[in-house]
């Protein structure tokens, strides 16, 4: 191996080989995936004209919430991918009524598949738990809704403030007695956690794709 140019070529081409195979080929193979209708038109084999196209672009508050999800590192305990029925128990645990496929992610600027399930999968949490107040209580202190949970509390996203006047704010959390704050105070969500909950609500797998149908 004293032939340097040859050694260097080897070093170059081994990595080029994998980069072309894993990254470039897939970018070419499906990097241009487009949204489509839930079924293909049997005649044209393409999307049915006039039907809604899926997936849809994420919008508004939910997109801000995704930033919060990212900067807090939620992804390190929660995946966003549903494996096929029969492989793992994703389907039986109602984490999604179908497998998630490449097309589901095409509008995401950052794909947060995750590799760890310290907590449950969140690909379709908006279908499974469509109740914002539940999420607020859960984020404020996870043990309120899930006894024994290992999720850290995100109380720092909430504001504890004095109740002005006689009425509590509409958005104030309805904390169970053992978690309640002192008399005359209330806990209200800050903007970031409102956005985060909106993002969680937006995580849905409630449509079919030609290559993946719900069961």
């Amino acid at each position, binding site marked *: 191996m004293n032939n340097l140019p040859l050694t260097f070529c080897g*070093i170059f081409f081994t*990595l080029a080989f*994998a980069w072309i195979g894993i990254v470039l080929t*897939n970018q070419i193979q499906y990097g241009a995936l487009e949204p489509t209708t839930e079924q293909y038109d049997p005649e044209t084999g393409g999307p049915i004209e006039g039907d809604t196209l899926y997936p849809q672009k994420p919008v508004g508050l939910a997109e801000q919430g995704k930033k919060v999800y990212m900067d807090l590192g939620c992804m390190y*305990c929660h995946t966003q991918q549903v494996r096929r029925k029969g492989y793992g128990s994703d389907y039986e645990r109602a984490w999604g009524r179908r497998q998630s*496929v490449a097309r589901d992610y095409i509008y995401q600027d950052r794909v947060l598949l995750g590799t*760890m399930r310290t907590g449950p999968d969140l690909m379709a949490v908006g279908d499974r738990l469509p109740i914002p107040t539940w999420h607020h209580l859960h984020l404020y202190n996870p043990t309120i809704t899930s006894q024994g949970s*290992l999720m850290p509390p995100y109380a720092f996203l909430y504001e504890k403030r004095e109740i002005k006047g006689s009425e509590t704010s509409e958005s104030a959390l309805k904390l169970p007695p053992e978690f309640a704050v002192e008399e005359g105070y209330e806990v209200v969500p800050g903007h970031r956690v409102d956005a985060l909950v909106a993002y969680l609500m937006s995580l849905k797998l409630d449509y079919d794709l030609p290559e993946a149908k719900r069961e």
Partner: protein
Amino acid sequence: MSAADSNTDMRIKLSAIDQSMKWPALFFIISATLWLLAGTALGLISSYKMHNPNFLGNWEWLTFGRTRSAHLNAVIYGWCNNAIFAVGLWIMARLCRTEIRHLGLLIVAGIFWNIAITIGIAGIFIGDMTSVEWLEMPTYITPLLAIAYALIGVWGIIAFRYRQSEHIYVSQWYILGALFWFPWIYSVAQIMILFEPARGTVQSLTNWWFAHNVLGLWLTPMALAAAYYFIPKVIGRPIHSYYLSILGFWTLALFYNWAGVHHIVGGPVPAWVISSGIVASVMMVIPVIVTAINHHMTAIGHFRQVIESPTLRFVVFGAMSYTLVSFIGSTMSLRSVNEISHFTHLTVGHAHHGVYAFFTMIMFGSIYFILPRLLYREWPSKILITCHFWFAALGITIMIVTLHVGGWIQGLEMNNPEIPFIEVMKGTVPWLKARTVSGFFLAIAHLAFAINVFWIVFFRQGQKDVIGTPTLFASKQSR
């Protein structure tokens, strides 16, 4: 010229090379040690939080997602990379038989590297984390990192270009390959995930191609280069087989590249690419067996030295871990095994098996060899070295066993829908607590190591200058 004369000439030559590398190597070793301590503290905090989520729970900047990511980045880009810059460049300079010049530039680049990592980790704490695994540091430090790396990496190439040795040794191939591979994978990942994101899950493929290759094409070749250098060096006999080294190098270069996709088994990417990743992961058995045979056949009959030399003790522990962790890794990539092990603490245990029990242990051993030769004095405390070795070896063994067993149980339970998810989660708690205990072991080991490093570097009184064969356990010498 007699053999003794040429031997003395070589000693003088190597000594001059060591002197030329003194300041940069010292700088990188001290930086690495400081990052190791920081990374250990962050790891301990994260580990404790896993079974006690309210711990430090009121501060946003110390929330689990951030401490965990800060731990990973401090360890990989702080500890591992600084250690590589010290050990890799030192070995390269020695094997090229060339003194390195203009070292001021190398140290300046090193300072920039460490400033960039510091800002990057501060960025994670204040909420600029990218949430891309192994690339959590915010993008505003990327240019600084790139320039710093270019200036550091190019030193290896320059040393190689002006080498005065005729023969090219196996360690040099590994270092040369790694110095070239790392910037490629890093810049592709930065561009295709962060700056101009590829569409959909192509990002995930790029992510795992990158992250696994940081281990496979950066940490692994550097650690193997060190093992290939120090095992024959300390024992004093040549490596068993030149041809096995060649086979090991090229099969590693060919197969490790493709293995990363096994992190997305069952995920929303084409099945063929996952299959190719699994094939490559299994093929990794070849370089691993070849390297193991080569190292074993070199060390055979000299196990007394393995026990007596701190360098060999750590390096051989690392080399043996490499064999074991790679076999486990190949097994974990199989679909039927991955169905259980994926998404569990087993993966975390496996990552520590590779980065700590293999890579980090070899770097410890290397530093035990290098520092006395840079400073012309022996390690001040034998007890601290012994303490370091046993706490590190025991700590990492406890961590690997608990996370593997606990993770496997977690995976089995998770795949059984009869068991509510919260019960699966509760079931992991005892294992996570044991992991925190192992973290304390490692913290003690690292403190012992750090004390010894700062002692030998900054306090010179009472130490005997040792020329000859330092870095046997000190008792063999003076005390």
